């Protein structure tokens, strides 16, 4: 339970020695309560007080790291249930599932398919970050290890779905250096699985036949000293899985129940096997509500394009708008003689405007320069989308590359026309419509 300033003050030496940089112990306590300072910054705090305080002031949900190098991902560490309350910090990661129950041809096809989806969207690389390797009940260590080795060949971080400690141990022997997740602890095997995970130094995934068993198993693992966990909240059906995902996260963040303060795994393959459309719906649902790792049968462009866009939106910090990289974006097969259009770098504006421009079918060079990630009127008011900034970018970046000397500006900043004409000699400045939806008609009329 988080402590308030007064409760923290009671634990301080109350000397007002100022060594921490605060004028009084009371002021220091208030800062600690707000999270602005750490309790360790007081040199006179007793060991006991620090221990009880760091327990109380620890974040409600642990941050768990999996993978290594480029494949290292941070899960959890969330502090709010709704993004508008602050922000979500650790993106949902998606895993494509392989299973020992699949035949070789199916496995090979999947392994060939996974790397095909790999693209960039607003500065972010989009690809299936994880591969889930499931060990079906009838598989032995040799078969499973062979599949794990094959999967490791794609170079993605692995999640091993295996409940047999001996098989898991064999599989980890070939892949533990890449820090996979071992998802396999449950009420009946947690002691053995804990030993295997601890020895290999990997994150352990825990599941239970219901939420109570999951809770008890996590508590038992914590007692054994393992706090490097993820919780597989997948239940018998969708309804139970959704309830588990929400209840686990809510218990941790709203009710400060630290036993559930871990990231989650949702396995859509278990609850919607063979139904890729349902898995698509569930991937979206659990991206919205509290899935840290989501396992799916496939990640083709059909799933990736909407899902990664959704994730990028949901995990945007509300205080920091998404920005598009400045540059010249040729649309509809534009060349150096095509009309130049400009707008701001605010991602939402860019998408709406570029979407309409593409719909018009008219070849255009869309020029984006740094406008602080704000909308047209806001950035204009802030002086970030001005005659100076636009003309400077055009002269430095556009004139060497584009021969056309016609520039279309947003109707909302029609006031910039005169200024731009003065600063861009030889250019014809055209004032466009005020709203993006009018662009198609405007461009068609212009061509006519």
């Amino acid at each position, binding site marked *: 339970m988080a402590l308030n300033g007064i409760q923290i003050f009671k634990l301080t030496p109350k000397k007002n020695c100022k060594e921490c940089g605060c004028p009084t112990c009371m002021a220091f306590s208030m800062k600690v309560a707000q999270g602005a300072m750490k309790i360790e910054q007081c040199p006179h705090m007793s060991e006991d007080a620090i221990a009880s305080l760091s327990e109380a002031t620890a974040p409600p949900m642990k941050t768990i790291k999996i993978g290594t190098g480029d494949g290292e991902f941070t899960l959890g560490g969330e502090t709010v249930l*709704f*993004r*508008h309350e602050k922000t979500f910090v650790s993106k949902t990661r998606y895993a494509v599932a392989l299973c020992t129950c699949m035949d070789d041809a199916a496995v090979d096809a999947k392994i060939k398919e996974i790397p*095909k989806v790999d693209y960039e*969207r607003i500065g972010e690389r989009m690809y299936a970050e994880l591969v889930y390797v499931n060990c079906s009940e009838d598989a032995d260590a040799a078969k499973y290890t062979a599949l794990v080795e094959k999967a490791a060949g794609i170079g993605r971080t692995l999640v091993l779905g295996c409940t047999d400690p001996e098989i898991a141990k064999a599989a980890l022997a070939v892949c533990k250096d890449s820090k996979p997740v071992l998802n396999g602890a449950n009420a009946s095997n947690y002691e053995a699985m804990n030993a295997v995970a601890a020895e290999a130094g990997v994150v352990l995934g825990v599941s239970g036949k219901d*939420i*109570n068993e*999951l*809770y*008890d198993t996590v*508590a038992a693992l914590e007692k054994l000293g393992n706090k490097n966990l993820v919780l597989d909240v997948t239940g018998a*059906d*969708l*309804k139970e899985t*959704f*309830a588990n995902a*929400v*209840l686990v996260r*809510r*218990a941790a963040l*709203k*009710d400060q*129940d630290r*036993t*559930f303060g871990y990231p989650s795994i949702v396995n859509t393959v278990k609850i919607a096997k063979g*139904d890729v*459309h*349902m898995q*698509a*719906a*569930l991937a*979206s*649902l659990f*991206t*919205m*509500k509290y899935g840290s790792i989501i396992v799916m049968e496939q990640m*083709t*462009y*059909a*799933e990736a*394009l*909407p*899902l*990664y*866009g*959704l994730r*990028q*939106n*949901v995990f*945007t910090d*509300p205080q920091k708008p998404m920005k598009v990289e400045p540059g010249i974006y040729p649309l509809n097969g534009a060349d150096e003689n095509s009309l130049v259009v400009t707008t701001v770098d605010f*991602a*939402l504006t860019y*998408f*709406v405007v570029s*979407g309409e421009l*593409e*719909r018009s079918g008219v070849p255009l060079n869309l020029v984006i320069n740094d406008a602080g990630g704000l909308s047209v009127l806001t950035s204009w008011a802030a002086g970030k989308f001005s005659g100076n900034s636009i003309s400077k970018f055009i002269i430095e970046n556009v004139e060497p590359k584009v021969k056309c000397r016609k520039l279309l500006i947003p109707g909302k900043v029609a006031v910039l026309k005169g200024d731009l004409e003065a600063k861009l000699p030889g250019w014809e400045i055209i004032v466009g419509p005020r709203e993006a939806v*009018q662009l198609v*008609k405007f461009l068609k009329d212009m061509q006519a």
Partner: protein
Amino acid sequence: MPFNQKPQKFNAKINTVTIGSGDKTVALGGNSTFPFYSFDAPTENTAKVGVEITDMGLEGVSEGIKAYYEGATTMADIAKKAAAMEGADFVALVLEGGDPNGENKSVDELIAIVKEVADAVDCPLVVEGCKNVEKDAELLPKVAEVLQGRNVLILAEKEENYKAIGAAAGLAYNQIVGAESAVDINLAKQLNVVTTQLGVNAQKIVMNIGSACAGYGYEYVVSTMDRIKGAALGQNDNMLQMPIITPVASETWGVKEASASEADMPEWGPQDERGIDMEIMTAAADLAAGSDAVILRHPQSVATISKMIKALA
């Protein structure tokens, strides 16, 4: 120590608004929990799925949709097939041909289509305008008039034309008023306030708080819906307790991820599949954030989303 499950109880609920007449009606809203949180309190009404058809017939729709409607030549045929779609709760007719910047069909022409569709099906109906505020102010009151007794949802009045549309639909012809705002909790509330000030019963309003396609500024949709449901339930704000309907198809099928042909983007794969998943994923996210009804186009999307809703109930 066992897990102590603490339910989140609210002493408020979303209004229940019924659309349709006779035996075939659907109830939107009515719940006192966040979407799908049936572990907190029983679900009063599950979310509903509508099938979008337009006065433009099958022009421009994807292959899979065309295949579903094969053989349908008139608007009546199309409407019947839409109503029969697996998982469909209602049919939403969009009068997009009325747009003065598009086909610019006359009001009389559109009203004839409205009548044809309404006569063909007895399921609950939603009628959407063409989004042009002046044209809708002229068109939608006429729609409300000719569909008297059908208890249809008229989508939608906006800040600029709420007087004409809200008064006609909500007062003169006793239909359900759809109130559309632009992804902002304050604008949504403001429109509800002025609409009720006209005399429209708050229990007869359904909100479209604005929508976006996943990936296209969708974070605003999430946060607006989260905040509206939070205020409606947590603060008992009765000017935000109207159920939310979200037209999904009209947002998702237009973006390039869904509309680019396979010939243009070979690595992206079949267009129909991309369109379906864009529609499904956006709809699932809308429902998770707080939509009480979604409007979809593809039979696969309708079937999948409806199945998901039922599995979560």
